[in-house]
């Protein structure tokens, strides 16, 4: 019996030691592994890499390209990517990731700085500055080449607007203009939701980015001060944004709190509320047509005739007059790649003009390359593409720090407390400021009265 016990204990210890200690395996330099997300109808990256695989292998004799499509939702994709990178043997040479992760992945020493390579790449001059900045980490080095972006603004239903006596060519100049239109719709067209601004934890990041930050970045404040490198809370802008949400929900200009807090609300907006004409104005993203085009999850051929687009105005119309936030993807090179030159060649090939255009079209991405933007083929097929591309000139990126997901979670909780009436906008702001101080550390936060 005792021997048995000893045996079990030995096995356990060995297993624990084995699983805890570092890595030993090595990947060879003759294979370049590229990992990317493939999710449902979102197969742009898969199509791109399948397309360029034979080209790459022909251009680099003796080097094989191994595709690792990861079929899962975003969180699961990053979980798997993070796990793969934890050991040298499985870390991909090139990976597809949200611009948002560049900073923390660089800090984790997962990524290779690309500055010297980029400066020698003639195409790099075609990329717009905002997108270039999105690949730059806090240390000033650039770790990725952006694969396009997305922008945000207002979608509105022209048919409902006609019934409400609002212009088909709607151009709100301030938050007040947006509220006025919503009130007019509420009065004249019963049975529709006048205005949807995402809020609350149910829809997750949509509440932070399409919702709260689209408001905040239209005020005099931002969430993060790049000069002082501090988070900004509390601020006048936060309180005003909370007040705006409070107005929408207390005047019943928006969805009911029940609807807004439903974890599937953003799916429902895209799949049901907009196509079924139940929602008049929607503060949302450039990608919505993805599910309306033929073959999409909820095909809606008439979408481009029914819906109009207009920029989200700044609070009082102050310059530049409109707001957009951006996310988007980039290609990064693994820090431990055995063949950095081949990995970099793959990035160059994947993001040259022809292949960028291919990916933008397949993945409903907004162009960040000047030469693609001016290419007539780019604007074909999607009537709103020009509008969303024009928003790139004003667009801003989220503060891409490792603590952001937690702060974002608190933003969502704060907006939720406002729309459910659990907290006044002032209380929600001060609560939020307290949470941010706790998460980021008191010395990393500044107020802006």
């Amino acid at each position, binding site marked *: 019996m005792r021997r048995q016990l000893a045996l079990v204990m030995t096995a356990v210890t060995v297993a624990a030691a084995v699983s805890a200690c570092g890595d030993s395996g090595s990947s060879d330099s003759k294979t370049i592994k590229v990992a990317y997300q493939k999710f449902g109808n979102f197969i742009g990256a898969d199509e791109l890499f399948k397309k360029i695989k034979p080209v790459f292998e022909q251009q680099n004799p003796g080097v094989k390209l191994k595709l690792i499509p990861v079929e899962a939702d975003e969180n699961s994709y990053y979980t798997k990517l993070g796990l793969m990178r934890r050991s040298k043997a499985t870390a991909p040479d090139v990976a597809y990731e949200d611009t948002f992760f560049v900073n923390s992945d660089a800090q984790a020493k997962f990524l290779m700085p690309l500055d010297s390579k980029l400066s020698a790449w003639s195409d790099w001059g075609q990329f717009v500055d905002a997108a270039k900045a999105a690949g730059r980490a806090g240390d000033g080095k650039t770790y990725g080449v952006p694969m396009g972006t997305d922008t945000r603004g207002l979608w509105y239903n022209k048919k409902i607007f006609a019934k409400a006596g609002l212009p088909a060519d709607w151009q709100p100049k301030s938050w007040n203009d947006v509220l006025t239109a919503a009130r007019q719709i509420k009065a004249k067209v019963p049975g529709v939701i006048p205005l949807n601004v995402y809020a609350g934890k149910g829809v997750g990041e949509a509440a932070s980015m399409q919702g709260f930050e689209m408001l905040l970045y239209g005020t005099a404040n931002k969430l993060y001060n790049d000069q002082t490198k501090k988070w900004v809370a509390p601020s006048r802008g936060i309180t005003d944004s909370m007040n705006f949400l409070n107005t929408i929900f207390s005047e019943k200009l928006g969805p009911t709190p029940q609807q807004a807090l439903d974890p599937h609300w953003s*799916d429902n907006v895209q799949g049901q509320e907009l196509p079924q004409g139940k929602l008049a104005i929607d503060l949302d993203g450039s990608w919505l047509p993805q599910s309306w085009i033929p073959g999409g999850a909820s095909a809606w051929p008439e979408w481009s005739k029914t819906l109009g687009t207009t920029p989200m105005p700044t609070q009082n119309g102050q310059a530049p007059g409109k707001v957009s936030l951006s996310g988007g993807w980039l290609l990064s090179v693994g820090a431990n790649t055995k063949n950095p030159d081949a990995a970099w060649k793959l990035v160059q090939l994947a993001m040259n003009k022809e292949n960028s255009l291919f990916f933008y079209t397949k993945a409903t991405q907004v162009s960040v390359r000047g030469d693609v933007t001016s290419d007539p083929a780019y604007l074909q097929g999607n009537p709103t593409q020009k509008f969303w591309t024009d928003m790139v000139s004003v667009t801003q990126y989220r503060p891409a720090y490792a603590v952001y997901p937690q702060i974002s979670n608190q933003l969502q909780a704060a907006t939720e407390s406002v729309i459910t009436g659990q907290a006044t906008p002032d209380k929600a702001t001060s609560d939020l400021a307290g949470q941010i101080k706790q998460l980021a550390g008191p010395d990393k936060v500044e107020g802006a009265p």
Partner: protein
Amino acid sequence: MTTTSSPATRQAVRPPARPSRISATSPRRRSAAVAAYLVLALVALAFLLPFGWLFLASVSDKATLGTAIPDHPTLRNFSEVLTGDNLHALINSLVLSLGSALLTLVLAAPAAYPLSRYSRRFGRPILLGLLFATGLPITAILVPVYGLFVQLDLLDSIPATTLFLTATGLPMAIWLMKNFMDEVPISLEEAAWVDGASAFRALLRIVLPLMLPGVTVVFTFTFALTWGNFFVPFILLVDPAKQPASVAIYQYFGLHGTASYGLLAAFSILYSMPVVVLYTLVQRVLGNAFALSGAVKG
């Protein structure tokens, strides 16, 4: 129950197949039976109702998350999900689930036997210690397991993934098995021992047949658990061609969460079928086994 059972119940463990026709036809029995059928019908209905959306969405050409009777019912969703890749994924699921369910039985039965019959003092604390751990969601141990698989060079291997799935199900399986085994009286094996049969033979020929209902519970339990497992194959298998249906189902979702609900519903029905069929088959076999064991005992 083992220690408290009276001689009367001990004898009675072999149910004599004496049909009691007299009382079965008595009016009181009959009204009780009618009431039981009524309640069963209600329960079945209550369990069936939530499926409503699934069936409606699967035959709808414009399915949403709302429940609506489709204007133009169609089987298009089904024909669309019946792709080669999906069938392949289902076969992968079958390999993983059958493999780990069978392996679980093969490993759990011999382990449970000594625990049930003699090594109680020594085995029990270990078993219980392991049992607590099965309350952990698999997400809790993903990181070390991945590291372990990298170390042992087992990534992307279906047999190794099966082994891991088996390991996570084993504590529960051994525990269930041991407890079902405790219900089987030892006197029958003692007779076999006297005849010179080994413990292994006694287990195989006498104990397991007598606890067949329990064995099938363990089997179905392990099978169903593996069948629905997403994270383990997702993390441990790399090649998309090796992924099972629980991972393949994600193809019906979109980047921002939107799903093709019609296809999702059709695929879900397709996906659940094998387990329902398995259960029905097991029930059949079980029915025969009851008759069989009755014959052996009688």
